[in-house]
């Protein structure tokens, strides 16, 4: 019977998975063939029954909250009792930081993490400059460098307009800190190389302890500054003078 060959493909047809041309031919056939259209009807009804029957289990609101809490970014955590302690501790930390900028350094653990981060940043900066190919995307054009990061790092950021400034963009490459990817940009100012690193704040192990200031940790032979904006953590590091470092930082802050 000629319909055998049609029926063999009936499910694929009803799944909408036949090539376009064949779908049209099939449509025409089913419309004119009582046997195939009856079959199609039964199968469509079966599909619907499975679809409804298959949506059977609903997670509890409590479970949803638990998952959300696991993957949520910082601001949402405060809604969950389990995190209240952490949030309270963070609030105390902020108040303390306001009272005295140096208070943050009282915690030796925070200090240790801060030093670790800066020393990593310094290593990245030095290693890159020592490399024969310090940048993977070589361009002075921010409109070339920014899109290069697309798909390579899980966030987006803005590069500043450098017209009327002494800075020039050399290029960029990928960088890793605390096992997470970020962007590394190199700028030149009067023959000094300056690195700018951008990471996701939440991917750092202890972002709060990095702080927002330009006081370089002890023994660091570079001038640095760091700040956080829009969930991103920025570091600027180089042997250029502190005003140059701050100036570049300001250009970034203004652009974001």
């Amino acid at each position, binding site marked *: 019977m000629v319909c*055998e060959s049609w*029926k*063999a493909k*009936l*499910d*694929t047809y009803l*799944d909408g*998975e036949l090539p376009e041309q064949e779908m049209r031919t099939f449509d025409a056939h089913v419309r004119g063939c009582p046997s195939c259209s*009856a*079959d199609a*009807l*039964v*199968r469509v*009804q*079966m*599909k619907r*029954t*499975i*679809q*409804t*029957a*298959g*949506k*059977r*289990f*609903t*997670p509890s609101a409590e*479970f*949803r909250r*638990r*998952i*959300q809490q*696991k*993957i*949520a*970014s910082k601001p949402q955590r405060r809604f969950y009792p389990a995190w209240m302690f952490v949030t309270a501790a963070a609030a105390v930390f902020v108040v303390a930081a306001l009272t005295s900028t140096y208070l943050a350094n009282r915690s030796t653990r925070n200090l240790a993490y801060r030093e670790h981060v800066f020393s990593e940043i310094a290593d990245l900066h030095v290693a890159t400059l020592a490399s024969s190919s310090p940048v993977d995307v070589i361009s002075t054009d921010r409109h070339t460098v920014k899109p290069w990061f*697309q*798909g390579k*790092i*899980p*966030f*987006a*950021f*803005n590069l500043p307009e450098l017209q009327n400034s002494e800075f020039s963009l050399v290029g960029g490459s990928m960088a890793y800190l605390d096992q*997470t*990817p970020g962007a590394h940009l190199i700028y030149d100012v009067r023959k000094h190389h300056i690195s700018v690193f951008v990471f*996701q*704040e*939440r991917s750092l192990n202890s972002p709060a302890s990095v702080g927002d200031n330009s006081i370089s940790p002890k023994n660091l032979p570079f001038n640095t500054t760091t700040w956080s904006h*829009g*969930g*991103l953590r920025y570091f600027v590091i180089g042997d250029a003078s502190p005003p140059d470092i701050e100036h570049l930082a300001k250009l970034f802050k203004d*652009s*974001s």
Partner: protein
Amino acid sequence: MGNEPATESFEQLAMPHFERLYNFACWLSQDRNEAEDLVQETYVKALRGFSSFQPGTNFRAWIYKILRNTFLTSRTGLQATATVPLDLESGEESLPATHETPESILLQRSDGQLVQRALEQLPVFQREVLLLCEVEEMSYQEISATLDIPIGTVMSRLSRARKALRDGLRPQV
């Protein structure tokens, strides 16, 4: 500039699938507690591996694949797959039930509970492919990516699953 960094994007991408993932996990493990563990582990793994996810590719297939792999390596998953041979996957062309009899026409009236029971009875590899196709409404291409099998195998597995489901329903109708 309104440059919104993609800080939230894992959550934004992953949470819309939460209910369906849980439903799928329940169908795989057939145990609600275990399904919660599976979903939780899936989200933790996905978040950890999010940097390796290629934006622009199919996130749904990616996260379902993580869930499924997590299930397959779990104790229940290993048991479920050990007892079920991957059934004659070699023959790509398997014919679906050739004729629908008046008896099968009655299937249209078969209520949800009967279908649920029949689905439960299916071997896990048939159950999952049918759920991805009918409940998740995934394309063959997406199913192929989720299950890591060629499209031809998706089609033959689907075909067998449908036949097995119809057979499972028959005695009860």
